[in-house]
């Protein structure tokens, strides 16, 4: 019973095996891909493991505090930013192995030629909010 983030990158992940940009696919291939993603989410909901799934626009801005009484400074987007998140799925599963298994299935989504993309997905565990069982160790 732990939550994991399956993170999909526009940029920054190692190159996929079937690494053809989506705009080079046929419309049918795009439909098949979208269908696969929807089916995957629906399947996770059925298995009681789905928490959340979101996609992000590729373009964003950098924002920071600029001192008392001033509006925040915005900048970017920077084309050279190495890491660009495309979207995520949050799952609640019984084990890390299960999280990896599901990420593997998600990475099999079809792309160009109807073949699996073999896209690299990042699997990140959530930090729980509450300490479990930690008290005794810290005597302790």
């Amino acid at each position, binding site marked *: *019973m732990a*939550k994991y983030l399956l993170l999909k990158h526009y940029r920054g992940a190692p190159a996929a095996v079937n690494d053809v940009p989506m705009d080079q696919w046929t419309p049918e291939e795009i439909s098949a891909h979208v269908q696969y993603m929807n089916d995957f989410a629906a399947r*996770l*909901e*059925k*298995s*009681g*493991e*789905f*928490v*959340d799934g979101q996609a992000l626009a590729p373009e964003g801005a950098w924002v920071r505090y600029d001192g008392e009484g001033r509006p925040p400074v915005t900048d970017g987007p920077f084309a050279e930013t190495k890491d660009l998140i495309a979207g995520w799925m949050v799952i*609640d*599963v*019984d084990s890390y192995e299960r999280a990896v298994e599901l990420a593997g299935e998600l990475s099999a989504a079809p792309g160009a030629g109807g073949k699996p993309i073999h896209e690299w997905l990042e699997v990140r*565990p959530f*930090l*729980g*909010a*509450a*300490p*479990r*069982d*930690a*008290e*005794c*160790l*810290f*005597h*302790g």
Partner: protein
Amino acid sequence: MDEALLRSLTPSVLTILVRRGADFAAAEDAVQDALVEAVRVWPTDPPRDAKGWLVTVAWRKFLDQVRADSARRRREDLVDEEPAPGSAPDVDDTLQLYFLCAHPSLTPSSAVALTLRAVGGLTTRQIAQAYLVPEATMAQRISRAKRTVSGIRFDQPGDVATVLRVLYLVFNEGYSGDVDLAAEAIRLTRQLAATIDHPEVAGLLALMLLHHARRASRTAPDGSLVPLAEQDRGRWDTASIAEGVRILQAALARDRLGEFQAQAAVAALHADALSAEETDWVQIVEWYDELARLTDSPIVRLNRAVAVGEADGPRAGLAALAALDDSLPRYTAAAAYLHERAGDLPTAARLYAEAAQKAPDLAERDYLTRQAARLNTRHRHRH
């Protein structure tokens, strides 16, 4: 209206329906519907016989469902002739329900969800909120769990150990949403202890009570973790400690030691110390030795190493630690602590920071980061 009292009737009402011939999944839904109805109706129109009311309403809900499903055969069998009000189920029936909900064919998360609903009487929404997942996801998890156990005979004997593991998981989840899962786990374990005479059930109940007794002192107002040694012992719940110790002593007297009794014994020794300095670490090490024999768990050996560090000094603790696999969870945190006790502050600071990177939850990470920061600040001030 006492919701806990209402929910405590859940298992017996459910088992009555099952004994009348309802299948488990449908009966469980019907009982949920009856609980919802009770929450709605009872505040203005409290029943004289709460359980009788629930059985009647749940049975009617079950029949409504059977009709809605137009299951003709069942209807002919069941509708026209409502059985005589069932006698109270014997305690074994409630026990069967625990076994079924913790059946080994279920994954831990399914067993937990099903136990909380079918035995605990919590709603799907409450369970979903407690585990921070969408209600639809939890509903699916529960209905899948019910399908998984649908072929299992209700009167099949089960293994108490699987039930205890499920209850322990619930207890460790702590508190989120509007359901206090730790308190719920205690309630369910107490109820289980009333149905079966088993020293490990008593051991788990004692362990939970002893841990729960310290809850108020375990976190600072800002939510940060307070280690045992720094806790305000005046805030420990003495009634809960006394009950835990009493239950544990009765269990230990049976001379059938198990892992929960041994863990509870460690907790009792902590509870017994008026100050951290008065803790009987020698006895705690002995209990960890027992635990290591019982479970062969590497976590136990890690805890033992820290206890050895208190009983025989940090060097001895570090030596015990050196024999263990350094990839164990919290190994680095334990090493940091023992190095600090041994006076090697730079190493301790480095290890605390490293342990923070590996911490499994926020409170622990922040605690470890603060430990590193504390040592680093002291170090800077000296130079």
